[in-house]
């Protein structure tokens, strides 16, 4: 008996054109190749499947020389396959995966009452009853020690301060920075810091401290007054724009050591992406502006809905094309949503999990409870242990195994899965009641957006490749 001759078929990839050239995005590797004429001819010759002899004949007819090598090359890259290759899901990360980032929720209190807040809004997962409202110094110190101990092997680690409103516990923040710097220095390591704030409590002294200590700042802000004030309000319903605008201007003027970022939450009626971007970037002077649709169950009044989201995407495309034109001239544009995706494409990530939650990153609440990330802080259901006892490995395993890409059946055939991996665990929980559920409500948008960013990437790789190098060090999981 002789074995049947292997039949070559197309591997799993997404093909696209940019700058007049053909590119392949190989799934699940996350690799991007530009096709030359010969490789393109080979892929076009495979059709519904062909034996080696048939392939060679078809290529010869197209005048392609050295077809044997070409077949081997494309087969090794899995652009073509014969069906006997092993399946290659990203492996589960090792259990002792070292921490990189700790998000410290200094307080769960806030001076604003944004309806959509995932910490205290209608879809909240937090159960703060009976727990401390402010983190104390002991818990904070233990958290720093925990981070340094659990990140062995990493020279530089990161602490993000979060809330509630972070600056409501600024005295603790100062103490933590001093303590953490001292601890890290003794081990010959470094810690860098960032924080997210609503900017209402910024003072010249605080701004001075943030700049001196190179603390990265993200301001939650939704645009010009009439949009920002819709949901970002004080408890009495008054908008917060007038309070924060002068403070933000001063922050941007005086904090010169790190780029200052705005983070916009899009909701129903707050979808004017381009106007928001122009205001935050040009009028206020933020270095970067990033957008995310609100995380919510679909029936909330502020949920955007499919049609609203399509409008958002249209405007994303306009800004993305601007970003592209800036990049061709070697300039930074400031639309973070493109920059972040480009940074991941530079590496060619193929994620086992959508983000670093419960892996390289954990959140710690005021009570010392450890959560997969800041979005789950203070939730009893999702707690992964306590800072005094460390991470509960069984709970962590459960969280990670449910969030692993191989556990998400719907993602199996999606070409965007190396980057998306099913999407935010928290969003999935709010929508579907399961952190491991793929976020099926935005698959179409994710593929559309990934395609847009891929095209920009491919175009730049042909026309201004040096520009892409600037993103090589940008954190892949932001």
């Amino acid at each position, binding site marked *: 008996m002789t074995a049947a001759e292997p039949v070559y078929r197309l591997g799993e990839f997404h093909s696209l054109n940019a700058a007049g050239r053909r590119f392949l995005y190989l799934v699940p590797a996350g690799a991007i190749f530009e096709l030359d004429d010969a490789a393109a001819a080979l892929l076009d010759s495979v059709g519904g499947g062909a034996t080696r002899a048939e392939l060679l004949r078809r290529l010869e007819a197209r005048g392609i020389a050295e077809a044997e090598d070409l077949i081997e090359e494309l087969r090794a*890259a899995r652009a073509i396959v014969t069906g006997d290759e092993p399946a290659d899901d990203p492996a589960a990360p090792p259990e002792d995966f070292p921490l990189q980032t700790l998000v410290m929720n200094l307080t769960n209190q806030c001076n604003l009452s944004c309806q959509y807040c995932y910490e205290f809004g209608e879809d909240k997962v937090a159960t703060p009853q009976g727990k401390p409202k402010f983190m104390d110094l002991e818990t904070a110190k233990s958290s720093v020690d925990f981070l340094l101990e659990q990140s062995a092997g990493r020279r530089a680690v990161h602490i993000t301060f979060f809330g509630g409103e972070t600056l409501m516990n600024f005295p603790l923040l100062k103490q933590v920075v001093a303590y953490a710097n001292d601890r890290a220095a003794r081990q010959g390591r470094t810690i860098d810091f960032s924080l997210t704030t609503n900017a209402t409590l910024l003072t010249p002294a605080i701004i001075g401290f943030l700049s001196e200590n190179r603390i990265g700042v993200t301001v939650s802000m939704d645009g010009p007054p009439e949009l920002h004030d819709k949901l970002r309000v004080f408890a009495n319903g008054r908008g917060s724009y007038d309070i924060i605008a002068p403070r933000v201007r001063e922050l941007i003027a005086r904090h010169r050591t790190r780029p200052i970022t705005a983070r916009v939450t899009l909701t129903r009626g707050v979808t004017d992406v381009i106007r928001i971007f122009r205001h935050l970037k040009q009028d206020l002077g933020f270095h970067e502006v990033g957008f995310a649709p609100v995380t919510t169950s679909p029936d909330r009044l502020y949920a955007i809905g499919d049609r609203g989201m399509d409008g958002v995407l249209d405007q994303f495309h306009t800004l993305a094309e601007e970003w592209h034109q800036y990049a061709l001239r070697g300039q930074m544009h400031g639309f973070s949503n493109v920059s972040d995706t480009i940074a991941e494409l530079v590496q060619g990530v193929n994620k086992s999990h959508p983000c670093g939650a419960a892996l390289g990153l954990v959140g710690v609440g005021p009570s010392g409870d450890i959560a997969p990330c800041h979005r789950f802080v203070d939730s009893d259901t999702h707690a992964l242990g306590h800072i005094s006892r460390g991470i509960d490995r069984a709970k962590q395993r459960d969280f990670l195994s449910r969030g692993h890409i191989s556990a998400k059946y719907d993602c199996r055939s999606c070409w965007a899965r190396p980057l998306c991996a099913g999407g935010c665990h928290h969003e999935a929980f709010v929508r579907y009641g399961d952190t491991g559920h793929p976020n099926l409500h935005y698959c179409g948008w994710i593929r559309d957006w990934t395609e847009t960013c891929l095209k920009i990437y491919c175009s730049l790789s042909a026309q201004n490749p040096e520009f892409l190098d600037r993103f090589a060090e940008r954190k892949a999981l932001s």
Partner: protein
Amino acid sequence: MRAVNRKARRIENQIDASRDEAFALQNPQGGGQQRPHVPMGCSLSFSPGWEVDSAGGTSGLCQPVERDIYDCYVTCFWPAQVPDHLNNYPDWAAKCAAATKDWRNLDLVFP
């Protein structure tokens, strides 16, 4: 194909490396001094070792012991049982064309 991101470059390097490997096997004299050849071993070809069947004989084995001599001697290097054909005793079985008939011509060696 031209690699345009880091992952693609890693795949490219891997392909290049595997080409070099194939080249090295085809040209054993090419790469400077020739080093002893150490095969992967019979564990990969799933031949039985020196064994007896349930009755204490060899007839019930899927491969008779006489065949095993050559499994260990020619295709493999199993120093516990047979001389090393590849590096030190290339002529050990020279007078033994058929093991079932000529096995008496296989002699001991004294390293």
